[in-house]
């Protein structure tokens, strides 16, 4: 089986993530969708690592994971603080700032 399938799968996952960001209201879920996009990238990286026969891709995937973890920490903190204030995690409720 050719790497193309993995790439396509990754692309699909990425799209799903992106669309998810657009359609879901719950901040946590939206954030998860972003994570999904990152992981789609990881899949791509690893696939390419295979095709090019280098390990760079896999190392990069590790980097991405670390970064993603850091992002989770920061992200959840922000979401929590706003949730505790507003008692709601809906991204649509936060629109005082506009125009």
């Amino acid at each position, binding site marked *: 089986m050719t790497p193309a399938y993995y790439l396509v799968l990754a692309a699909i996952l990425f799209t799903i993530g992106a669309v998810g960001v657009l359609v879901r*209201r719950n901040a946590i879920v939206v954030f998860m969708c972003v994570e999904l996009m990152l992981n789609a990238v990881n899949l791509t990286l690893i696939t390419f690592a295979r095709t090019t026969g280098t390990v760079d891709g896999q190392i990069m995937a590790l980097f991405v994971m670390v970064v993603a973890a850091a992002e989770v920490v920061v992200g959840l903190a922000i979401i929590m603080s706003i949730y505790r204030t507003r008692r709601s995690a809906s991204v649509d409720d*936060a629109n005082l700032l*506009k125009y």
Partner: protein
Amino acid sequence: MPAEGLLAASWLLIALPLAGAAVLLLGGRRTDRWGHLLGTATVVAAFVLAVACTVQLAGLEERSADVELFTFISSGQLDVTAGLLYDPLSAIFALLITGVGSLIHVYSIGYMAHDPARRRFFAYLNLFVAAMLLLVLGNSFVALYVGWEGVGLASYLLIAFWYTRPAAATAAKKAFIMNRVGDVGLAIAIFVMFAQLGTTSYAGVFGSVGTLAGGTITAIGLLLLLGACGKSGQFPLQAWLPDAMEGPTPVSALIHAATMVTAGVYLIARSAPIYDLTPTARAVVLAIGALTLLIGAIAGCAYDDIKKVLAYSTVSQIGYMFLAVGLGPAGYVAGLAHLLAHGFFKAGLFLGAGSVMHAMNDGVDMRRFGALWRKLPVTFGTFGLGYLALIGFPFLSGYFTKDAIIEAALDRDDVWGWVLGGVAVLGAGLTAFYMTRLMLMTFFGRARWEDGVHPHESPSVMTAPMVVLAVGSVFSGALLVSVFPLSGWLEPVFGEPAEAAHVVAPALIGLVVTVVMLLGVLAAWLFVGRREVPVTAPARVSPVTRAARNALYADAVNESLFMRPGQWLTRALVWLDNRGVDGAVNGLAAGLGGTSSRLARTQTGFVRSYALGMLGGAVLVAGALLAVTSG
């Protein structure tokens, strides 16, 4: 040739009155006490100087003197030197202006005695004299133009002398504007001369004008004529002159009878070398002269305002002069002779009218006059002589000069000659009619004075000039035509007077004219003298009379042709400028603002819509790049 002796100092002619004006205007109230004396003194001095200069000029063999003063404007090809040309033509004008001017200054001392602003009046009069002298003495068309507009200014100031009266202010403005219309013609004529000949001095232009194409010369001639019409109140620019009577009467006498309004005649006479080359332009001059002659005479018959009648008479008489100078070499001298004679008797008549008004508490309505001959003997006498001179009573000045013009017209010896001659004769009859009417209504018949009017003769300071002018109006004609023939004096300017081939014997012409004149007098007596003059003008009159009363609707025409459309245009443009030009800019601004607030709506504040925007952007970017790379 360059001037020596007194002639070299002829610039003082202009400088003296100008200095007088400056002193009176800048001096302020300090000069109130003696201002009028200074003003008169400068002009008298100028007159003396003019006489002396003329005498010296007569001594020179080729009677002409140039006075170079200083470089006025010099740039590129253009080189305008401020200089004077003192030759027989300018000399007679200098004498007329300073002479009549002096008399009128003297007269004004009395006439304006009780006016708080007398000093200002004399300042303006001096200013006028200076400008007028510059006009006639200048040695180039530019100098002439400067004087030309200078007299326009003086006339404006003097007509509006009693500026608290809206009528006066409006009349002054009207005069200035209509003169400016003429000035445009004069200015463009100068441009053409410079463009074609590279010079604007008389010597340069007249020297080389022959080299130009006929069309160009005609154009110059017509443009100059436009200027002349504006200044001399000729058709189609005659409407301002009667209104100008709003000014004090001495002004009407000096500016709007004797001198300024004759500047047009001077211009055409001065430009003889140009007109001699363009029969077309000259024909137009003739036509305008004849037409104005009639218009003025007809309008003169209908007015009850004594000054208006005299004003239209002036229009008509200047028509005679135009007709004369339009005839070319044959007519120049005749026209100028009539001009000088007219200067005397018309000035005299106006001063007389002033004296009458002085007696009648400044009333001008002849229907409220009558039977004044006993109350104002001197005025009546001088006025009567002026009257006789004007209507061309045999052997008074008008008789000679007017006949000379008619002769010259007939001497063309063609149909037009007869037509013009006929018009001139008819004009003589009309002149006799309206002037007789004026005499009858003013001095004879029953006294129709308003209550509280106690006529009294004017002081001698006023009557003396009137007497002098009356004498002049009696003899000047004879002097100019036969004793010291003007033709001889002006020979250096217009050349040898051609021996007139008398188509019709002068004696016969004199007879005919006299008969027509008497008919006019008779008619006047029949219409006015026999019956009682109603105090208010009869309303139900023939269309002819009504037309005449409206000066043949000249004002109406101007109004409907120029003023109204002009006002509409102005209003339309103001609207266009605010709504259109400025509106476009403000509209653009408003449009941007609208776009801004509409675009701002896309900034909904919803994270997800932002994300959508970003995704769309990303897709576009990727798509664009792919499009570019894939060709």
